[in-house]
């Protein structure tokens, strides 16, 4: 594996805490690696596993999801959905051959800029050890980023209408 491999990580951050935290890391010049490309969603609870797979398919070497700490979600229990999903997604990914280093879900508050920086640094280091994700087919991470943002909006609209959780 080449030494100058720079992993591409898709960071999906909720607007209310984590994005603000990442922003703080940016503005207070606490450096975090340029490997992460950030897309903002209203809540971490709205990130569908399908989109995580798509991100890998379109060239991500890792996916990081970050939300408000439990109890602090702007939508009360959005991040409860996140914490239910995480262990299932992690197991599914491992089973289909995506190494655990490539997927992380964390809680970052608006004041935890430094913590965010460290998480990203660690993740970059871990992914460098396992190397580039091999099975990717496309190079359209931008398209996936738009889809993530759009689908989160759709989910929000469905929720307001009292949509079912049946997934159909």
């Amino acid at each position, binding site marked *: 594996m080449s030494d100058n491999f720079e992993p591409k990580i898709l960071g999906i951050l909720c607007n209310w805490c984590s994005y603000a935290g990442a922003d703080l890391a940016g503005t207070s010049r606490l450096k975090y690696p340029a490997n992460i490309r950030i897309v903002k969603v209203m809540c971490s609870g709205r990130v569908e*596993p*399908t989109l995580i*797979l798509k991100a890998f398919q379109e060239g991500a070497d890792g996916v990081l999801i970050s939300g408000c700490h439990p109890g602090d979600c702007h939508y009360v229990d959005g991040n409860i959905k996140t*914490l*239910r999903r995480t262990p299932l997604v992690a197991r*599914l990914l491992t089973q289909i*051959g995506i190494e655990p280093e490539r997927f992380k879900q964390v809680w970052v508050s608006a004041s935890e800029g430094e913590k965010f920086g460290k998480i990203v640094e660690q993740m970059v280091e871990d992914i460098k050890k396992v190397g580039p994700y091999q099975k990717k087919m496309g190079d359209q991470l931008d398209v996936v980023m738009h889809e993530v943002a759009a689908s989160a909006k759709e989910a929000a609209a469905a929720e307001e209408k009292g949509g079912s959780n049946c*997934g159909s």
Partner: protein
Amino acid sequence: MAPKLQLAIYWAAACGGCDVAILDTDEKILNIAEAADIVLWPIAMDFKYEDIYKMEPGSIDVCLFNGAIRTSEQEELAKALRARSKFMIAFGACAAWGGIPSLANLTNREGIFNTVYKETATTINEEDIRPDTNYPGPEGELHLPRIYDRVWSLDQVVDVDYYVPGCPPTPETIWTAILAIVTGNLPPKGTVIGGTKSLCDTCEREKTEKKITQFKRPFEIIADPKKCLLEQGLVCCGPVTRDGCGHRCTNNNMPCRGCYGPSEKVSDQGAKLLNAIASIMDVKDEKSAQELAATWEDPAGTVYRFSLAKSLIYDYKKGGE
């Protein structure tokens, strides 16, 4: 009388169940025989490769192709039949989405050979002999098909016109497909001949607030025959699966395993089901979520039982090897 339909039925990585399902159309099989000349059907009639190669392009009206693609021979035959057929139909879950055989994609050729030729308790193979594709026999060099590193769906190898879902498809589904072809009443290319709703939409079981407190496997409980199976802890693929099978499993008190494939608008049956299941897990903190998730024996094998080859991360066209 209109000329009879020239019908070919072929199998690749299949169990034979799809062929039997065609026979299972009972007296309708006679109607099929009346409407069609069966020009190829390896399970029922003798044929040689050259019989296929002799056929002219377009001389087969419809090819019902069952089974997934996992060897060089199956790929070659799929291509030969495609070139000679006006309509290529992915028949059954294996052809359509990889089916059960594509669960092999959770490992690879090397992993499978290790299990089969080395690690199973009943295997004695001290010289570590593995299958080879060339054998220098007394009559000259013999060749066997190559096994691929992964299993492919039919449409990842050749162009497919329609999909007939099911493991195997029900007689009604088969008949609907045949009728559409015979009468020329064809839906748009790419259509899956089945329902348009999800199985849950048409399921008559009593649904209350969905909550999972523990994942259970069908042999562990006797399910209440009236209530939603998912609410009883059995993973049922109904929320993301196309209806049209007549609720074969749920009517027999077994959860749906998803053999009619993803319902409309679902791009990845497994990921979508995982999401639906996660949202009804009855936990509120990380530790309990971990513990509950751990009671689910085999998430990938459950949510992708019939469609792993078409999971987003495996869904691309096969190139040359």
